[in-house]
């Protein structure tokens, strides 16, 4: 019994972590360019397929993982350069529609270029087993996933606090015009924001695939939809909010799944969304509202 409860708590935190990383990726871009990037899910898919190819060609796993994360970051920078930069002066709705278009184009590329069916990504047996902590046996993947999430959050925080580019990104979220007056190139800050958001999508994708064992062209859709909900309950454009929202959403999903009576299980999402609605009634601006959520 102890095992089960602990395992569920672990699952909850690990799913929350994935949502948190995805929501952070959305928030980083939104806070700086005011774009809700619905192509974020396809960045996950890019990472998923690169991981699939890496495993297929028997690359060492750490290398395949880094390659997958790098590919998602690169894809994010490319979509910015090719699709979003030309639309820089456009209003929020046009940007949103652009992101739908990018998302649709990428999805068709995956479906026609690779396969519409899921591709298995067999991971080494060490990851599918359990870790024994004394009398307690815990899944290796959720544990690893929590470690990766924590490391990513710590690294991101150091980057935002300690580096000039990180400080510039926080400043850009508050007043982009003034940042440009300081001589800091707008295009570079935006490109780094997209790259960072892509890398976060890539990390989430690796964790996602590790738990499910396969990739398909639509794999990014559901998690990013959840991440969007997480970003909203956290406070759209707020980075700490995105993390908080991600954990709240992931944890409530898993706990409802684990502890609802069986008859109520089909309505799990209704319970989760009730939590979301309750949070938004309690705090309409989100758990940790952004300082400024306006466009540059």
């Amino acid at each position, binding site marked *: 019994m102890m095992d089960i409860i602990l395992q569920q708590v672990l699952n909850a935190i690990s799913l929350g972590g994935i949502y948190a990383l995805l929501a952070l990726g959305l928030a980083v871009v939104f806070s700086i360019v005011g774009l809700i990037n619905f192509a974020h899910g396809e960045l996950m898919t890019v990472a998923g397929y690169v991981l699939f190819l890496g495993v297929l060609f028997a690359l060492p796993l750490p290398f395949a993982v880094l390659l997958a994360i790098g590919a998602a970051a690169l894809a994010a920078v490319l979509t910015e350069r090719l699709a979003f930069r030309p639309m820089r002066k456009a209003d929020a709705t046009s940007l949103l529609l652009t992101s739908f278009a990018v998302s649709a184009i990428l999805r068709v590329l995956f479906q026609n270029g690779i396969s519409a069916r899921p591709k298995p990504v067999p991971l080494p047996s060490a990851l599918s087993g359990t870790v024994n902590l004394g009398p307690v046996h815990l899944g290796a993947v959720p544990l690893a996933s929590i470690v990766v999430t924590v490391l990513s959050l710590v690294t991101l925080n150091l980057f935002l606090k300690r580096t*000039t580019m990180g*400080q510039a990104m*926080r400043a850009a979220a508050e*007043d982009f*015009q003034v940042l*440009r*007056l*300081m001589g800091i190139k707008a295009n570079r800050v935006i490109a780094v924001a997209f790259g960072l958001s892509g890398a976060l999508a890539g990390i989430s994708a690796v964790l996602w695939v590790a738990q499910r064992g396969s990739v398909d062209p639509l794999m990014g859709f559901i998690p990013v939809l959840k991440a969007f909900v997480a970003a909203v309950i956290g406070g759209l454009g707020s980075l700490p909010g995105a993390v908080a929202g991600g954990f709240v959403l992931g944890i409530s999903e898993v706990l409802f799944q684990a502890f609802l009576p069986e008859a109520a299980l089909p309505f799990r999402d209704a319970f989760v969304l009730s939590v979301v609605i309750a949070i938004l009634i309690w705090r309409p601006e989100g758990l940790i509202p952004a*300082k400024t959520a306006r466009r540059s």
Partner: protein
Amino acid sequence: MLTVTDLSVRYGQIEALRGLGLSVTKGSVTVLLGSNGAGKSSTLNAITGLAQPRGRIEFEGVRIDGVAPEDIVRKGIALCPEGRRVFPSLSVAENLHLGGAVHARGEALAARVEAELARFPILRERFHQKAGLLSGGEQQMLAIARALMSAPRLLLLDEPSLGLAPKVVDQVFDLILSLRDQGITILLVEQNAERALEIADRGYVLQSGEMVLSGTGKELAESDLIRQAYLAG
């Protein structure tokens, strides 16, 4: 040092500035006066590249109209914007750091920060606090210090005395004079005409986007237009 010829700025249908000409002499304090919406900020926005102007702007003999804001500051022009606009959730240290980040690195950057802290001792006390928690006067000092971090030869100040207590306003005007004495040329936009003209070598008066009067600070302070419109008698 700075020559502006036949400058116009439009925002959509609205013509904010029409055919402005002005020049700023090296080592001087030049003042731009006018009521709200007269085109003062548009002039500064055009010089710093934030607005897309028609006309000609020359700085140290080089055309700079149409150049991006990121590049204008590299040429030696810094703007301290209206309303201070410090980055509120960043610390004083981070605000200063960003002000100088593209102009100096490592020890040179640290030396610039140190120089500004020596100039504004209050910022040393507040060094690790969030800028948003500073008082209005302290934020104004931070905004000026941040602009100075780029070591500009021309400093544009947009209403630096706005909303500040009289004592702090005195500090700001003393500071402007001391910056001029250190060789920084100043273009000052002000609503406080009386104080501004006291320290101005030259002044221009804008009305509804057009220049209506110019002269030395003394000439303007004695002109009928200024006396009626700004100095209340």
